[in-house]
């Protein structure tokens, strides 16, 4: 039995005695530089912020860090952090009755008023259930009592909140900034659980599932609002002033600054592109001021500019050159996530540090018809030109990202990927000989909610296997490194991402059977999920592989992303017709964002606020 009222002292003693025999014990200790510890007894509302994967992964999550600082800035609130514990630690904790605790003050999670969970992807669902259980908090929302924390989830996966509705007291849809503080203000009124949730549900972007008929999963009670509109901050709030610095190596050991939120390209496969609209840019001067402070606050030696499509940032050239002139002499590196192929400029490339040796490009598809279908038109000439440019500038290694399993894809389209990779390799060989390295990373396309492909069927297991074979055989003995996720991994993501309310019990059953760390290819066991679906009498392929009619009611229709369903439908039709939609930065296509939020997109970009 978990002792959910263990004292911080008991938990500390447990850690002292246990961590010596635990793998990577630095995950469980907290104490990082810039950690915030407030006086527990003088604070009215306490929230534990959780990321349901191991410390190294969760630590680097930007959203968590933003909320951590935003909430702690409020004098009456405090936020501490917790992450999933690895299996060896979980075993030790359970056998000693030690509950999940916060890293800052080693307090049981159940003593917090709110547990805020970040759900960026579906394969964290079972970890979430496990965290609740390890905290001694009833896993089903209906079974919680007055003294249990309110469990609230947010993040990209919650744009279809229905599968996790049975486990969450509330969901926050959209940007987390400003709204969490509003929620905590409601909690601080000290009302009953029911009254608190009722009041929270009056916020536009908060979904409280207990007020809905979950069996019918998207039918709303008479008095409720329909739909629930995602939260946006029209202007990006200041980036964290004192980013946490880990004591152990994490996925990203660097200063991350979000330079832009949203993307204007409208690639039809990309969920982030549709749910994070509108595009909002942070002014150059604000970014530079942030970096100046953050380097001093953290001591990191690497800067990463975060955005969905960094080269779209209006003042990218100015930004990059000002960063490199300021920090190159200090041995501080600048890293950019993958650049769009058409956006290369000589000047930009000059500024980027060459120490890394690896350059990432994401053409996604290799044939004309697929490029039109997904609305990412990049010509072969442009790609090869870019590749030769990259090799000439001193890089020796290029990583290429492609998608397979797109609607309407043929075997020929996959063969084109093979041919294109070989051509890139040939360019490299010609320019720098055997030093040229090409790595190809293939992802299986998974249709996601709120995108034009939300009605589409996922590619069949047989077809995906055949396409893998074509790629494997085609790239054999070429020296090109090929990687792709297992079919099982893609299936699970496909099953969960467009599931309905009936899937809650399946998630619970799979977890009960031992499913956990489903995002880890070596931990995920699809058989547990198959059994769980079967026991609950649900065909998982009806979620993933069923072509839906555009007139069908979808479980996530009550979530309004600001982009109209009519627009998404048009985009789907254009995809079938092979028609492109241009970058909306230059030509508005009336997706609905401007009218939903009463904003003008053009006001939010272009380095407003005096810079540029």
């Amino acid at each position, binding site marked *: 039995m978990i002792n959910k009222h263990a004292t911080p002292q008991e938990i500390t*003693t447990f*850690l*002292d*005695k*246990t*961590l*010596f*025999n635990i793998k990577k*014990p*630095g995950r*469980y*200790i*907290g*104490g*990082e*530089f810039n*950690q915030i510890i407030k006086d527990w007894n003088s604070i009215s509302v306490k929230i534990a912020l959780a990321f349901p994967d191991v410390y190294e992964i969760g630590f680097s999550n930007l959203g968590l860090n933003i909320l951590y600082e935003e909430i702690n800035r409020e004098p009456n609130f405090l936020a501490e952090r917790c992450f999933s514990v690895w299996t060896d630690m979980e075993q030790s904790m359970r056998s000693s009755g030690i509950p999940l605790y916060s890293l800052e003050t080693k307090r049981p999670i159940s003593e917090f008023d709110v547990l805020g969970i970040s759900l960026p992807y579906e394969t964290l669902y079972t970890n979430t259930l496990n965290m609740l259980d390890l905290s001694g908090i009833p896993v089903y929302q209906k079974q919680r009592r007055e003294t249990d924390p309110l469990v609230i989830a947010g993040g990209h996966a919650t744009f279809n909140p229905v599968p996790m509705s049975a486990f969450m007291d509330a969901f926050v849809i959209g940007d987390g900034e400003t709204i969490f503080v509003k929620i905590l203000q409601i909690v601080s009124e000290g009302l009953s659980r029911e009254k608190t949730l009722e009041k929270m549900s009056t916020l536009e972007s908060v979904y409280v599932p207990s007020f809905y008929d979950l069996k019918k999963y998207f039918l709303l009670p008479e008095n409720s609002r329909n739909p629930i509109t995602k939260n946006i901050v029209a202007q990006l709030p200041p980036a964290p002033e004192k980013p946490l*610095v880990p*004591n*152990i*190596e994490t996925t990203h*050991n660097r200063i991350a600054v979000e330079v832009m939120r949203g993307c204007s390209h409208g690639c039809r496969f990309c969920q982030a592109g549709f749910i994070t609209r509108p595009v909002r840019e942070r002014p150059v001067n604000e970014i530079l001021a942030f970096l100046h402070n953050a*380097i*001093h*606050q*953290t*001591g*990191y*030696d690497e800067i990463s500019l975060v955005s969905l499509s960094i080269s779209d940032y209006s003042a990218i050239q100015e930004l990059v050159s000002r960063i490199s002139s300021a920090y190159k002499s200090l*041995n501080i590196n600048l890293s950019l996530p993958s650049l769009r192929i058409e956006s290369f400029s000589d000047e930009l490339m000059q500024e980027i540090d060459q*120490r890394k040796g690896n350059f990432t490009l994401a053409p996604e598809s290799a044939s004309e018809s697929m490029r039109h279908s997904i609305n990412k038109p990049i010509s072969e000439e442009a790609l090869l030109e870019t590749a030769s440019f990259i090799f000439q500038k001193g890089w020796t290694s290029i990583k290429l990202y492609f998608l397979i399993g797109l609607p309407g894809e043929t075997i020929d389209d996959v063969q084109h990927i093979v041919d294109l990779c070989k051509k890139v390799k040939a360019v490299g060989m010609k320019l720098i000989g055997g030093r040229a390295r090409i790595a190809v990373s293939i992802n299986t396309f998974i249709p996601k909610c709120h995108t034009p492909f939300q009605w589409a069927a996922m590619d069949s297991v047989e077809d995906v296997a055949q396409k893998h074979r074509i790629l494997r055989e085609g790239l054999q003995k070429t020296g090109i490194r090929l990687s792709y996720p297992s079919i099982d991994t893609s299936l699970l993501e496909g099953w969960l991402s467009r599931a309905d309310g009936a899937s809650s019990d399946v998630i619970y059953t799979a977890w009960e059977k031992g499913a956990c760390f489903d995002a880890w290819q070596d931990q995920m066991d699809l058989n547990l999920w198959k059994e769980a679906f079967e026991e609950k009498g649900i065909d998982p392929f009806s979620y993933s592989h069923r072509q839906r009619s555009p007139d069908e009611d979808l479980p996530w229709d009550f979530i309004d992303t600001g982009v109209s369903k009519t627009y998404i439908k048009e985009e789907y039709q254009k995809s079938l017709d092979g028609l492109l939609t241009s970058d909306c930065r230059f030509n508005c296509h009336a997706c609905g964002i401007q009218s939903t939020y009463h904003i003008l997109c053009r006001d939010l970009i272009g380095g407003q606020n005096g810079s540029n």
Partner: protein
Amino acid sequence: MDQIEHRFRLNYSKHSFIRFTSILDIQKIWERAFRRAGIKLSYSKGFHPQAKMQQASPLPLGFCGDDEVLDIWVEELQGNTIEIEQINPYLPSGLEIHQITPVDLSMPSLQQFIESSDYSISVIDPIAPNTFPTLIDDVNKAEQILFTKHNGKKYDLKPLIKSINEENSTILISFSGISGRPDHLLQYFDSDPSNFIITRKKIHFIDHG
């Protein structure tokens, strides 16, 4: 371009939970702390420049240290020296510097001059585990203490032990050189090291003038 370099010896303690960070982690922690403190370390030349730092002897994961020794090479010194207060506010909890001394650049590396290392072993839980009181007797009686390491290699702990005694229910043990490890000793005598806090009290250096 020739930089004027300075070398300093930092004596610091590593306590509490940060003891569960590895030597590689600690390296990064120091590097970042110096950058926060505005102290410019020298970097090695070449494709992957490395900050110039040298730990006397890596402290095993999970051990506390009362008086660890780190040499750093600094360029562009502001003033003549570095003050303790210049760095301590920039350290994560559990690390604290208590002495900084300038060192001649020509002095050879620290590792070569370790004469002996003093450790203490104390129980975490007041309920003493059964083997603890007999450890000193066991050690004294043993002819050899052949411990098999993770990599399968054996080493004899017995000749490395300079002294072992008990004080206020804490065992104090001194090993010659750097290779003897108290956790190995405990394991050899069937005692789980996780029941103890092991602290390296001091590293003794051969006087090399």
